């Protein structure tokens, strides 16, 4: 830990990070007008206060929540496994609204982008869906011979009591492939974090540790956990690690093959990128296989640098450390030169972040390095520990919100008037309709933002979002005669 702290201060010193107070002074008494019970879900980071909002409560029925379901949580973690079949056991809509909606990229198989459903119909609800599920599993195995089939339970499966585990076990005997039940009935929790954990359990119980090829001769091996290769993010991280002489055993789960995850237990280290969804897996792997883990973050220059150094220090191999230092030095210079042009236009812009989890804190420094101010950050599914992390990361005076619904988001944007909103597809058109620039940072993202090259892309995309002349036209209405 001591070592990490030293590293951290070094990097902060190196970065241009200016620590300054945000300009809500004095802080408004009431953050926005909303339902009484919701008021505690928003707060400012302020000295002498707890600075974390109330969270992990069920959404108010009827408020247009931005949250999804447990199935959605499980699916986001598992779906990037490219050569697996992802079968949704439920009525057609659960599959047809969600297949291939995640921008995870693959360098090999495209099977994960195929939408499989058991298409439960009325008779299956009445008589049970087990037979249909078994038939479907055998058929899919015959058609595709996948190395694994993940079977996701949806709401009705839990209600009618289909024994998912038993059917999967039977199908596994018949097909001799991995058939993995995921008990992700949508209604099981208001917080999709449970889905993340269930997905983790599916990997831990049915995949990790099921393959034992000869171990690598390279002593420096690791798994990248909680990296889903959205828009190719993984491909911005992998080459950096390889340059340090590290062998990547598997990624959980971006651009991964089932076989690689099956031997993930052979790695010497886990690094965790999305700490919202995947800390659980890393912790469990430490318990089960004694693999230590490091929390990393490859968004932003200093966080990427810090992550690389932490990994090099973990392996305690002087040559790797000096390689990392050299790499960082060169890359930092290159990136700083390339982003200058964007930085000029982005400096001083005020950003509001509202995302699913991890990015609510992992992006903060990346903005600050561009001279931007994060005035608001928040998540739909934050837990107390998540908000603690947010509180520690953001500047004094930053607004922190939990589970804001559509109307609250709009009020927040109107009152605090950011220059840029970072969020997902549902919030995109809300923001843009209000004339506020928007940058996608979710499933639909098409540009990779990870690593050094990703940071240049990031700066470029932000510039594209805020600097276009279209926003000026909005401010000049048609003049009446």
């Amino acid at each position: 830990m001591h070592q990490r702290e030293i590293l951290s201060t070094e990097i902060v010193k190196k970065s241009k990070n200016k620590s300054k107070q945000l300009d809500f002074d004095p802080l408004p008494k009431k953050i926005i007008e909303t339902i009484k019970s919701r008021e505690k879900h928003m707060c400012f980071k302020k000295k002498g206060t707890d600075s974390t909002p109330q969270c992990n409560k069920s959404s108010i029925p009827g408020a247009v929540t931005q949250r999804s379901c447990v199935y959605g949580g499980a699916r986001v973690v598992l779906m990037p496994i490219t050569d697996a079949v992802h079968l949704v056991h439920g009525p057609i809509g659960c599959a047809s609204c969600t297949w291939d909606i995640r921008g995870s990229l693959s360098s090999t198989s495209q099977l994960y982008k195929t939408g499989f459903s058991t298409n439960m119909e009325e008779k299956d609800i009445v008589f049970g869906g087990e037979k249909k599920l078994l038939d479907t599993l055998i058929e899919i195995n015959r058609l595709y011979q996948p190395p694994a089939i993940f079977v996701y339970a949806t709401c009705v499966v839990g209600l009618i009591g289909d024994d998912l585990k038993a059917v999967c076990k039977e199908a596994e005997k018949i097909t001799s492939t991995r058939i993995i039940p995921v008990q992700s009935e949508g209604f099981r929790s208001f917080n999709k974090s449970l889905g993340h954990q269930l997905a983790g359990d599916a990997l831990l119980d049915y995949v990790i540790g099921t393959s034992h090829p000869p171990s690598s001769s390279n002593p420096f091996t690791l798994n990248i956990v909680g990296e889903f290769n959205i828009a190719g993010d993984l491909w911005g991280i992998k080459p950096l690690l390889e340059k340090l002489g590290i062998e990547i055993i598997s990624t959980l789960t971006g651009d991964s093959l089932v076989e690689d995850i099956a031997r993930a237990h052979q790695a010497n280290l886990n690094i965790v990128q999305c700490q919202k969804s995947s800390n659980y897996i890393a912790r469990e792997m430490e318990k089960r296989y004694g693999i230590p883990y490091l929390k990393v973050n490859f968004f932003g220059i200093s966080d990427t640098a810090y992550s690389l150094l932490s990994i090099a220090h973990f392996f305690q191999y002087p040559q790797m450390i000096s390689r990392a230092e050299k790499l960082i030095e060169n890359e930092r210079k290159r990136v700083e030169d390339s982003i200058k042009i964007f930085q000029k236009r982005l400096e001083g812009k005020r950003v509001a972040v509202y995302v699913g989890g991890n990015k609510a804190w992992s992006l903060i420094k990346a903005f600050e390095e561009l001279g931007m101010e994060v005035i608001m950050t928040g998540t739909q599914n934050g837990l107390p520990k998540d908000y603690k992390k947010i509180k520690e990361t953001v500047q004094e005076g930053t607004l922190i919100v939990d589970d804001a619904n559509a109307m609250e988001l709009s009020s927040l944007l109107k009152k605090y008037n950011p220059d840029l909103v970072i969020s997902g597809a549902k919030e995109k058109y809300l923001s843009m309709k209000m004339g506020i620039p928007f940058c996608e940072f979710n499933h639909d993202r098409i540009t990779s933002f990870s690593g050094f090259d990703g940071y240049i892309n990031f700066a470029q995309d932000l510039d594209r979002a805020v600097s276009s002349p279209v926003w000026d036209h909005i401010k000049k209405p048609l003049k009446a005669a």
Partner: protein
Amino acid sequence: MPESKKHQKKDHPHSPYGEESQELIAKTQKRFAVINPSRMCQPLGAVQALLGIRGAMPLIHGSQGCSTYMRFQLCRHYREPINVSSTSMSEATVVYGGEKNLIQALNTITHQYKPELIGVTSSCLTETIGDDMDSIINKFLQNNHNKIDFPIIPISTPSYAGSHIESYDQTLKALVEKITHQNILKQSLKGLKDENKKSSQINLKDKINVITGLLSPMDVEEVKFILKEMNIESIVLTDNSQSLNSPLDGKVDFLPSKGTTIKQIRDTAYSKATIALSNHANSAGVFLEKEFGVKLFNLPTPIGLRATDEFIETLVKLKNNQISKTLKIHRGQLLDAMVDAHAYNYNRKVAIYGEPDMVVGLTRFTSELGMIPAVVCTGTECNKFKQEIELISSQDGHEIQIISGGDQYDLHQKVKEEEIEILMGNSYSARIAKEENIPLIRIGFPVFDRIGAQRIKIVGYRAGLSLLDLITNTIIEKYYDNLKEEHL
């Protein structure tokens, strides 16, 4: 063709779109799995209908995922901020039934969003636990001592039966049935107050109800344009032309600020006639005819020349109005373009995929152009659809492969077998087009990988013209441009 492919190297053993699985698709039949679904579930159809009603809030009684994922699909298609509310059912509430959540949701929406209507749809979850939405809504109304001045319409949409097509139809019927109902009329509804009360029943009798079916905002706009050109006062069910293609003015509407009003829905009972431009969404028209004697005319969706003619001829029959000069010009321009383009399009094999009305309309239109609609596919199992296509097939002498209730796996097989040259369908079918190396005309729902889905036009002469240009230019680019280069 398949022979040569057999000897090519496979790219990846498990790729469904690699060479090996292409063979699999050709060789293997499937019975159980749905692979790449081509229909949505019932709550979505209800939401789509409600989005064309002024001040309406759709509320899905179920898990949060239903409303969130549907919102996601709707937002990325229409590129508009769309709100769909949820009763946020969770484990604890499932055990005791959803009454508490539904009542709380109605309360929240009433106070936060001040709606002119709430459409409450069920889901597989709440249908299975057997929540009685009617009585819960009544309880809510009683709790509020009849202070609720807007209609709350329950719509049963079990996701495990039918598809969004049936629920779209059922939603229109539920709206008309409940709002024209005596008891509702006795209430002083907010939606009625602000309307001009002077409009006498004689004026109402001149109006024509028009059920559009699932159309894009621009298509609904075109239907309204034709009606206006024909000097016809109409009530459009439901009018999404502005709510889902709204101008940017710096404000956000949480509920549609434009659209069919509650008063208009009530007035449908007094209209001269109903024209249903859809064979799959006419139940509201059937109800109005049976209950109030409003004559129903069932027409095909006005896509292409003949179907648009039929629409306009029916309007002439109904009101004895002159055909507008503008429409005559538009028709002439479409004909002119059809003649200009005919040589490129003749005998081109096209596959059409999407909602039944759209597929039927485009089958007729492409056939009018001289193309061969060799494969048609809709996700909903539907006899009416089959009959409509068979009629076109016998009239125009085409052999048409009909997939009704199939998925994209089935469609892909047929596209391959029939050596289709151009595909028309939504964004999900892009992968079939890519793999078969044929062009795709993006149409239907959802279209998320191109801009302007809310403005895709297929209805009327003008849209026929722009669609024809698009089809022809796509064919020229794909099948003629390279030809020239090869000869140079």
